[in-house]
């Protein structure tokens, strides 16, 4: 089984959040239109579901501050914590699409079946990377699908398309890896990225040094 994965070249990330919005636009995650759900007009973070997001971290002290950008999404782990925690999934039959969470045998993509999910949120607590997100409207949990609807046509044939986030990455920092090597899991991970030994995320990072 080939495992699809992410390669992120951290020092080519421009911090623009275009991947975040490409994902929202492609997957039509909420909020989609005004007025956005919010508590008042003072800039409260509205209720939202975002499958990809950018972590900005400030460090250092003036005049040598640092600002790092890490684009983040579901890492489609080899041993998904979400799946293991899911009361509606059979860990012994992880590829079964009748699980609320299942991992495709063909390409390792981890998916949440909205028809089966009960919205218990165990997966939200189990995932070390913040990928599953509760939709307060459907009261179910959603997350990144690797844009599976773009990667394959209606007949299951691989298309020439890539996930929306990869397509639009301004800095050419975010890449799709066709055959992720699990021994490279979490390679060059930035500060704050959870220990990859727990779930073996299909993500590695490049420092970008020539």
């Amino acid at each position, binding site marked *: 089984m080939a495992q699809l994965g992410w390669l992120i070249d951290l020092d*080519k*990330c*421009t*911090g*623009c*959040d*275009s991947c975040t*919005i490409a994902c929202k*636009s492609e*997957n*039509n995650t*909420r*909020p*989609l*239109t*005004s*007025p*956005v759900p*919010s508590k008042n*007009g003072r800039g*409260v*973070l*509205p209720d939202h579901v975002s499958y990809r*997001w*950018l*972590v900005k*971290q400030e*460090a*250092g002290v*003036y*005049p040598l*501050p640092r*600002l*790092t*950008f890490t684009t*983040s999404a579901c890492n489609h782990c080899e041993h998904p914590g979400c799946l293991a925690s899911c009361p509606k999934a059979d860990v012994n039959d992880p590829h079964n699409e009748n699980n609320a969470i*299942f991992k495709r045998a063909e390409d390792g993509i981890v998916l949440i*079946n*909205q*028809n*089966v999910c009960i919205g218990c949120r165990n997966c939200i607590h189990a995932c070390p990377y913040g990928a599953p997100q509760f*939709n307060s409207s*459907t009261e179910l949990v*959603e997350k990144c699908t690797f844009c*599976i*609807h*773009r990667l*394959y*046509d*209606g007949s*299951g044939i691989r298309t020439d*398309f890539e996930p*929306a986030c990869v397509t*639009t990455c*301004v*800095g050419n*920092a975010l890449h799709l890896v066709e055959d992720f090597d699990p021994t490279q899991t979490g390679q060059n991970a930035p500060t704050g990225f*959870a220990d990859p030994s727990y779930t073996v995320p299909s993500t590695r990072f490049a420092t*970008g040094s*020539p």
Partner: protein
Amino acid sequence: MKREKEIHGINPSVNRRTFVKVSGTLASAAVASRVFNPSTSSEAAAAGVPILTGESLPDEIESAEDIIYSVCQMCHSRCGIRAKVKEGVLVKLDGNPYHPNNRDVDENNNPDRISYETPPDQAFTELGRLCLKGQAGVQTLYDPFRIQHPLKRVGPRNSGQWETISWEQAFSEIATRIQQLIPDPGALIDPAIPELGKKSNLLGFAPGRSVEKEMSERIWKNGWGTANYGLSHTSVCESTRHVANELITWDPAGSKNSMGGGRTEGWQPDTLGAEYIIFFGANPLEADFPMVGMARNLMQFKRNGGTYVTVDPRFNNTAAQADQWVPITPGTDAALAMGMMSWILEQGAHQTGYLENTNRAAAASDGEPTWTDSTYLVGTFSDGEGKEYQRYITASEAGISGRPNVAADDYVVVAGGVLKGHNEVPHGDLEVATSVNIGGVDTPAKSAFTLLRESAFSMSRSEYSSVCGVSVSVMEGLAEEFVGHGKKAVAMTYRGPIKHTNGFYNQLAIQHLNTLIGNYDWKGGCTQGGGGWSQKSGVVSVSNVAGDPGHEGVRIDRAKTFYSPAEAPNLFSGYPAQRPWFPFGTHGNYQEVIPSILDGYPYSIKALITYWNAWPYSVPALRAVWEQTVADESKLPLLVTISPVMGEVAAWADYVLPDSVYLEKFGVPGIPWRVNKGTSFQRPVVGKFDGKSIGVKPADGGLGNTIPINATNNYTPALPNTKAVLDIQIGLAKALGLPGVGANALLDGDGTIVGDLDNNWDWARALLENIAENARGKHPGITAEEILSKGGVFDFPTDEYDGDYLSYQYSNIIRTFADPVARTRDSVTAAYYSGVPQYKALTHSDGSPLDDREYPFNLITYKTVHHGQARTNVNPWLMLIMPENPVEISAADAADMGIETGDVVTVSSPSHRDGIEGRALVTQRLKPGVIAISHHYGHWEQSSRPMEIDGVTTEHDPGRGAGIQPTQIMRTDDRYRNVSLQEPVGASCSFFDTWVKVKKKGMVEPPLATGIFSDGFESGDSSAWS
């Protein structure tokens, strides 16, 4: 929807968006949400497959006929876009893969942009990159709070009370009102002061952004005949940078003012070819433009081993990925640049051979595309009043003209100790200080290079260092690195250095670092851009109007005209002028228009038509003056606003004419400063032509992704009772009975009739045919249809270089001495300007020093990558990224004041003592002593509050008004108290010269929300990594 085989987890095509079956109305949020989520999860459930995402499913993947190429207008980068349109609904925006902004080279520096020869039906699997603002354009189109019908004010201005009227009524009433206010447009405003021009000038057209200016100029300049045909925004943007660059490339035979004009207004680095770049107050990963192209190239530049430096008081995204951050004191960029220059000159590290060349032939023999004025003699003269000024010395006055290769107006150089004409010898002496007998007077004369050198050495580097806050070692280190890369180093600016009262000299000083190494037109050096193929002439001459009444006289903002007995003899009454004049303000003066109307100087304005204009929001210190002026109908009797939303200008208008958004428009917005050559073409991607829907397959009665070239093509936008701005102006022109529109209105350059101008397609087709005609040298046989099908016409990947040179060259003189400026007196101080790059302190318009020392912090603004300036608060996705903007305070200053992130603080200035309230963000990423507030939040209109239309309260989104807008507290000028501080040569308003107090008010709930998952900022929502 049958499934061919078992596919694990893949949704088959269950997803069908049915666009607004309600005949296109976006009347309510509920309807808009139908646009966004017409296919529901229940449809998918019915198909019996796993549903993988939330209540609104992804759209089905595209085929070739779903793709329409156009141009983005979410910011001014004018990127190519690839619109995915399903059944007439725009569902996704990506970058146009033919467009050089959106595709360039791959990681291995091989061409990645698709060749222009690729047929569109083979290109649909190729996508270009598009930034988050561009992608959020879907929400600009389907904004549920767009204005849907023409509105007429009911009750006083700004009362929020409107009635809907028909377009016919709107055009007719507006035309009648204009004719009542200005019954005799051909008569002089004041026969005693003929330089004011005709009464047609009492109507102004003020397009904040003028992307369709060929049309608006045709209507208002060539049809109506006003000098105020384009009161546009550039002076709040980068006009001083443009103007300084124009003076560096000055052509005495140019036509921008009576002294000439610049050959180019912009320089940018050839990033992919460069090895070392210093960005002074430029933020190519965020606010500089075109961001996508620049940022992409800059990251590839890093991949190729390049080094770049960010000089900025604030550590922005560009600094985050830079090799070095140089936190500089705002407004002192020239001190750093002149200090660097002094080191380079002291070391002899400048390119002597390049600078010694006197003319084109000499440069060519050295393999240099450009040459400079460095060896030309500049004399110090005395005017009739005994005031000293400087200018170039001519060959005739030096007594050397008439010799072979010496014309009367030639420049004079010294070669081997002898005066020579600049075409007489290939090289001149760089260091010259002499005197030349002119008309019997010994006139002190120095080479332009000597003047530059003396200016650089007028202060020591330790003095420069104490001014700019950059240590001597850092200053010298930058200089040493800069000269260590041959022609492959660039010093580049954007708004940071120039939006100061001394901005003109900051731009000169920094730009001439490039001159010292002669990097112009070299691969890896400075480029003026590849330009494009013109849309203005060829088949149709866009400005040729039979019956053009002509336009004449002084503009309301007094740009491009000299305040002097020669140009304003009856208006000139000695210095200081009643309001300042801007003879070199070739891009106009946006901030002066409203105060000038208030003061009635040089005349009053009767009618103002605005388009894409956010005056009181965007312009420093204008809001109160705007409200005072516009509230008084005797000051401004008619205000008409063309706008798709109820913005800060529209709220005060007498009539609001709702135009379509950029996804429902034609235009040729150009491509900014790429090394590639191309012309983008913008077209509607949704709506109807002659009743047939775009993006609906022809079998269903639609047009698919084409526009039939020979049809009438009357256009209906997605909101059917709005109109494209071109059609609005044609409607107004017809109601006014102006020439230039209607049957047989389109003429070629010889005046031969070539067509009608009755709708926006007539115009778009004329532009298309012109572009095709002009592009055939590169693309033989290209047609209007092909340009339409590919979103423009572009050169081929790899066309940008010719060996070590850029293919598209400036190839002319670079002037280190700004001769026209040095011959000009300031309209306020009466002093001659200096033509020499230098560090100048900040001043008011009367030359008095800016001294607000009781206000301890220097306020700066910035734009993040998440927003354009005045319009993107209507995009929920962009507001989600950062729901409000904070008051950024350095950690050191915050500690002194006991301020913590989230505290409510009041920021006040000498011009706004009550101040504005915002929430603090304490950061290490800011130079102490500086306060930073971004420039795209804090709207008080734009659907952030309700209005009454036909007695019904409209829906709104209070979140659109979140945050604060710092322009409101910006410093006014001490002499002209109803306008911001200004830069007198380039006519910029100052953005970064306001000093403020910050006072802690306390902590209130809810906590500061700086964005989704931004845990590094101690935000209220820090669930990033769990």
